[in-house]
């Protein structure tokens, strides 16, 4: 059982479509980060959210932290092939000195 469950696990869509990826837990997190990992590379940070209900936008990407700080979502508008990759959520908890990573969502955007 993983502390942070992501859904869906796999997503294949056409260029121009919208999508949402979810990151859920029964535990409260003090912060939530989203990373994108491309094949053969390490994860790269996209955003950090720390306040319940917080919404951050990064161009076509919108990130939301749940009010209770137990879940988060990533919404991509008008997906492009360059968005293809593995999306990982990672939570920080008080008293823990390292991030807890989610199970990952593999996104493929077809041109």
């Amino acid at each position, binding site marked *: 059982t*993983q502390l942070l469950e992501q859904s869906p696990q796999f997503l294949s869509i056409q260029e121009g479509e919208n999508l949402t990826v979810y990151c859920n837990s029964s535990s409260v997190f*003090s*912060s939530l*980060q989203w990373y994108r*990992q491309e094949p*053969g*590379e*390490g*994860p*790269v*940070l996209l955003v*950090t959210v*720390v306040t319940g209900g917080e919404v951050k936008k990064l161009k076509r990407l919108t990130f939301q932290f749940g009010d209770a700080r137990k879940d988060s979502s990533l919404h991509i508008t008008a997906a492009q092939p360059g968005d293809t990759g*593995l999306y*990982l959520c*990672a939570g*920080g*908890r008080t008293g*823990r*000195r*390292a*991030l*807890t*990573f989610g*199970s*990952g969502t*593999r996104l493929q955007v077809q041109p």
Partner: protein
Amino acid sequence: DTAVSQTPKYLVTQMGNDKSIKCEQNLGHDTMYWYKQDSKKFLKIMFSYNNKELIINETVPNRFSPKSPDKAHLNLHINSLELGDSAVYFCASSRERAVHTEAFFGQGTRLTVV
């Protein structure tokens, strides 16, 4: 001028061998990590060092031993390699050890034990 670099990128070795993976960061960060990513892409923390001091040691077999000669380097030595050790190992660093601090990852070392 890679920020976090690890070597080698690929490592194929036989069961029972001992191998090391090296990691260096030129970001001036105080904290470094080793993560293991399994075949299902799940990333799990193994170790963390802050200014050469071990601060995280998860439930990892004692065949795995990290060594930090200085705060810019964190190497991982693995004794008596087993098939189940096959995975991608990522080194990472962060400016401070606060958990919300951005982690910068290396490119990973794909270890295959045959």
